[in-house]
C-alpha cells in the first residue's frame, strides 16, 4: 500500500467539516513542495524547452475512481480536487452501472479505490458483499435519511452525494400553440388532449427511466400505479436507447410534455431551453453515492477524495448550470440558483420511497412495461383513444374497457417472483436454466397480456 505524503488539506472549507468525522492529520506540505522545489532548483524533471531526464524520485499517488457520471460532472469535480491536491493524480474509469459490478469485484477491481456513481443497485450489492469501508459520517452535516426514507447504508459504508427526482418537463410555447392544458400532475397528461404529445422514456432502454416507473408504482401501489402508467403510455411517444433527449423533443416542438429526471430538465432550462419543470405528487428522490473499496490501494487519497466530494465547495458545484444536481448537504443550498426547489426542506420529500423495494421490482417492472405497453403500443393507443371517445359519449362499455386497459396483466407477487431472473438477464449473467425460466415467464406473461387484449377487442367490437 502506498503512503501519501502527510499534508494539510489545502481547500478552504467555509462550512467547516466536510462531514466525515475522521480527517487526515494536519501535517507538512513537504510532498507538495517537492515538485516546486525541484522545478526551482533545476532538478531532473523534464520541462518543456529544457533538456534533462525524468525524475524517478517521489512517486505521486494515483487514485483510481470508477464512475458512471458524465464528463460534465466528473471533469469539474476532478479538476477542483486536483487543484486542492496537486500531489494526487486521479484516474477515472467509466462504466455504466449494469456493467460495473463484475469489474469492481473482479481482478481489475483491486486497482479501484473509490466507486462514485448514481447506481443504487451496485452500492447495495457492494454493501451486501461487505466490499466497502465504513466512512464515519457526521449526519448532522450530511444526512443519510430524510423522513422515513433511507438514502444510504445505515452503517455508513456509503455516503450520499446528491439526490434526483423525476417530474414533468413542459414546453409552454407548445402548450400555447396546441391549446394544451397546463398539467398539474401526471394524471392530466392522460387526457385525450395529450394524445401523442407526451414523451416517455422506456426503462429498459433509458437507465434513469427506472426511477419514474418505480416511484409511481410505490407511491400509488402496483395496481393503481400501472393504471396511471398504462394511460400515460397510450398518450406517449417512447424515448428508446439512442441519442435524442426528452428536452430536445420538447425544445424542437415535437411534443408538449415529457417525463424526465429533474437535473436533465433543469440543466436544459439553465442552458436556455424554453421549458419548465414541474414535480409530481409521486416524486420521490433517488440517491447517488460514493464509497471506498475495502481493497483500496490508496485509502488516504480515497478518503481525501470522498471528503472533497462531500465538502461544501464541491456540493455547491452541483448547482452548475450544466449539472443542476441536488446536493445532499443542506448548507450548500444557501447558494442554490433561483427557482431550484430544495427537496430537503419541501414537503415533496415526504413521499415514501424505499430504495430496496424499488430495486426489488425494477427489472420485472421494466420487463412488464416492454411486454405490455411497448410491444402493443399501437393497439393500446387506439383502444385508449376509443375509450376517451366512449367516455365522452357516456357509453356503458367504457367502464369495463377502462378496467381492462388499465389493469396490469401481471400481479406484483408474480413480478416479484421473477425479479432475480430479469435482473440477471439485465446484467448479462444468465445461466442455461435462467434462459429457460425466462422464456417460460415471458410466455406466461404474454399469455396474460393476450387475454387482456382479447377482452379489449371483444369490447371494442361490441361498441
Amino acid at each position: 500500500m502506498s503512503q501519501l505524503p502527510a499534508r494539510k488539506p489545502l481547500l478552504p472549507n467555509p462550512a467547516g467539516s466536510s462531514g466525515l468525522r475522521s480527517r487526515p492529520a494536519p501535517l507538512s506540505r513537504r510532498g507538495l513542495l517537492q515538485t516546486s522545489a525541484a522545478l526551482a532548483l533545476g532538478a531532473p524533471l523534464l520541462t518543456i524547452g529544457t533538456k534533462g531526464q525524468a525524475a524517478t524520485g517521489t512517486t505521486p499517488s494515483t487514485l483510481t475512481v470508477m464512475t458512471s457520471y458524465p464528463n460534465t460532472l466528473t471533469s469539474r469535480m476532478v479538476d477542483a480536487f486536483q487543484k486542492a491536491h496537486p500531489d494526487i493524480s486521479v484516474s477515472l474509469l467509466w462504466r455504466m452501472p449494469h456493467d460495473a459490478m463484475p469489474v469492481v469485484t473482479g481482478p481489475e477491481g483491486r486497482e479501484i479505490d473509490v466507486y462514485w456513481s448514481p447506481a443504487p443497485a451496485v452500492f447495495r450489492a457492494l454493501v451486501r458483499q461487505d466490499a466497502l469501508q465504513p466512512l464515519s459520517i457526521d449526519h448532522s452535516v450530511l444526512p443519510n435519511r430524510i423522513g422515513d426514507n433511507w438514502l444510504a447504508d445505515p452503517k455508513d459504508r456509503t455516503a450520499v452525494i446528491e439526490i434526483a427526482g423525476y417530474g414533468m418537463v413542459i414546453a409552454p410555447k407548445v402548450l400555447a400553440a396546441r391549446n394544451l392544458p397546463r398539467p398539474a400532475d401526471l394524471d392530466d397528461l392522460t387526457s385525450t388532449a395529450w394524445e401523442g404529445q407526451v414523451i416517455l422514456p422506456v426503462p429498459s432502454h433509458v437507465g434513469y427511466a427506472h426511477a419514474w416507473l418505480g416511484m409511481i408504482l410505490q407511491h400509488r401501489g402496483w395496481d393503481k400505479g400501472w393504471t396511471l402508467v398504462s394511460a400515460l403510455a397510450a398518450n406517449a411517444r417512447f424515448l428508446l436507447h439512442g441519442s435524442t433527449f426528452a428536452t430536445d423533443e420538447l425544445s424542437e416542438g415535437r411534443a408538449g410534455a415529457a417525463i424526465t429526471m429533474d437535473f436533465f430538465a433543469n440543466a436544459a432550462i439553465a442552458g436556455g431551453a424554453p421549458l419548465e419543470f414541474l414535480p409530481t405528487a409521486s416524486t420521490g428522490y433517488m440517491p447517488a453515492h460514493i464509497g471506498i473499496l475495502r481493497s483500496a490501494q490508496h485509502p488516504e487519497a480515497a478518503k481525501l477524495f470522498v471528503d472533497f466530494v462531500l465538502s461544501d465547495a464541491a456540493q455547491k458545484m452541483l448547482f452548475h448550470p450544466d449539472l443542476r444536481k441536488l446536493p445532499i448537504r443542506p448548507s450548500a443550498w444557501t447558494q442554490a440558483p433561483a427557482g431550484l426547489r430544495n427537496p430537503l426542506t419541501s414537503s415533496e420529500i415526504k413521499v415514501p420511497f424505499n430504495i430496496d423495494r424499488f430495486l426489488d421490482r425494477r427489472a420485472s417492472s421494466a420487463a412488464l412495461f416492454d411486454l405490455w405497453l411497448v410491444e402493443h403500443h399501437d393497439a393500446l393507443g387506439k383502444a385508449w383513444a376509443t375509450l376517451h371517445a366512449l367516455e365522452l359519449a357516456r357509453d356503458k362499455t367504457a367502464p369495463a374497457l377502462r378496467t381492462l386497459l388499465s389493469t396490469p396483466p401481471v400481479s406484483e407477487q408474480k413480478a416479484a417472483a421473477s425479479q432475480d431472473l430479469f435482473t440477471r438477464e439485465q446484467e448479462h449473467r444468465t445461466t442455461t436454466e435462467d434462459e429457460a425460466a425466462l422464456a417460460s415467464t415471458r410466455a406466461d406473461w404474454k399469455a396474460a397480456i393476450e387475454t387482456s387484449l382479447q377482452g379489449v377487442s371483444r369490447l371494442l367490437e361490441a361498441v
Partner: protein
Amino acid sequence: MRYRHVVRHRLFPGSGCTHRPGHMNGRMKVLMAATIGLPVLGVAMALLSLPSSAPPSTDVAHPDTPVDRAAFEHPVEGLTDAQRTEFLEGRSLVGQSWVIAPSLDDDVDGLGPLYNRLACESCHDRNGRGSAPADGAAPRSMLVRVSIPGHDAHGGPRPHPIYGTQIEDQAVPGVTPEARVRLHWENLLVTLKDGETLVLRRPQAVLSNPGHGPFNADLLTSIRVGQPLYGLGLLTAVPEATLKALQDPDDRNGDGISGRFNQVWGMAARQTVRGLFGWKANEPTLRQQIAGALSGDMGLTSFLNPVEVCPPNDPACRNQPTGGQPEISAAQLDAMTFYLSALEAPEPRHPDAPQIRAGSEIFRNLGCPACHVPTLKTGSEAPLPQLRDRTIHPYSDLLLHDMGPGLADGRPDYDASGSEWRTPPLWGLGLQEEIGGSPGYLHDGRARTASEAILWHGGEGQNARDAFAAAPRSQREALLAFLNSL
C-alpha cells in the same frame, strides 16, 4: 500590493539583469526570445514570479442578455429526419465516455490501453475549447505532443521511438501511463502605452515518471489545448481556391503578412494535400482529425488508425483486450464526422450596438483582418447541401502564419515551422467564457482573455499587437467588446 515583492529577474540589458547573457539556460533563452520585440511603442514587459492565482485582466462585458448555453451544439438548419438521426448519433458518441474492454456495452468499449481522456467532450466541453489547469495541476482538456528532430515517411513529425507523437498520461489497469504531466506558469507583466498593466502567463509542462524509459534529450514538445468543434463543416465547405487566393507566402504585397497552406499527408487520399484542421493545420479532413483524436487521445482504433498505441517495449500494453478490430466502426466514425460537419457556428451578437460597431472598425484599422478574415463564402459543391453557398464569418483565413518566438513551440509539423500557427477562427469567442467557464486561448491555453491573446501576438501579428498596446483604453475596450460579440 501583492506583486511588489516578487520581482526576481529582469532580462533586459541595463535593467538589473542578474544573469550574464552568455550563461542563459534553455528556459531563459525562450523567455528572452519572447520578450525581444515587446518593448516597442513604449510598452515594457518584465518577467515576474507572481502567484499563479493572479487575477486575469477583465474584458469588457458584452450586453447583459441571456446566453444560450447550447449555442455550440445546434445543427445547421434544414436537416432531414435521416440527417437528424445521424447528427444525434454522432452527438451521442462525441459525448460518450468510452469504456475499457471487455464490456457489456460492446459498442462503446476499447478505451486505451493508453489514453488521455475518456471522452471527446473532456477536452471540448459543450463543443467549446479547452482550458489550461491551475499552476501545478494536471492538464484536463489539453495534451502534450512530442517528437524528435526530423520527419516521418510522409514529412510529418518524427515520432519518438517509445512515446510516439503524444504523451498519454492515463492507462487502463495493469498498464503503465507514459508519464505524469503537470503544468506550471510563469507570469509576466505587460504595461501598455497608457500605463495599464496586464499579467500574461506562459506555460511550462513538466513530464515526470516516464513509464517506458527516459525521454530523449532532444525531445520536441508542444502543449495543445482542445479547439472548438462548431462550424467545422462550414470551414470545410470553403473552396480551396478561395483560401489559395488569400495566400501570400513571399509577402509580395509587402504588408508583412504571408499566409500559406500546410501540406500534410492525407490518409484516405494517400497523398500530400493541404492541411485544414488542428493548431498547425496538420490534418487535412475532419474524418482524419477525428480518427486521430480517437486514437491518440482515447486509444480507440478505427479503419484509419487500426493499430493500438503502445510503446514497443511494453507487452502488458500490447496484450490488453481490445474492443474490436477496429474499436470504432466505420458507421460510428461517419456519425461523428457528420455531427461535427453539421454543427452550426454561433451568430454574432448585437452587431449594431455602437461600441461593437466601433470595435469592428478598430479591428479593421489595426490590420487584424489580414489574417482573421471576417467573411468567407462556402462553395456550391459541399457534400452537405445545407453547407452550400453560405456567407460565413469565421474571422480566419485558415492559413499558417509566423507568430513570432513568444508563441513558438519549436516543433515543426509538416511544413509548419516551430513558430507558425494556423489562424484560429474567432467566431464564438465571447460566448466561450459564458458557456465554458475559464477558457484557454491560443494553442496552449495560456491566454485567459482576448487581451492576453492579442498581446502574445508576434511575428506577422506584431504590428497589430503593438497597435493594440498603443491604442487608447476606449479603443481597446471597443475592440474587446467587438471580439466578445462574435
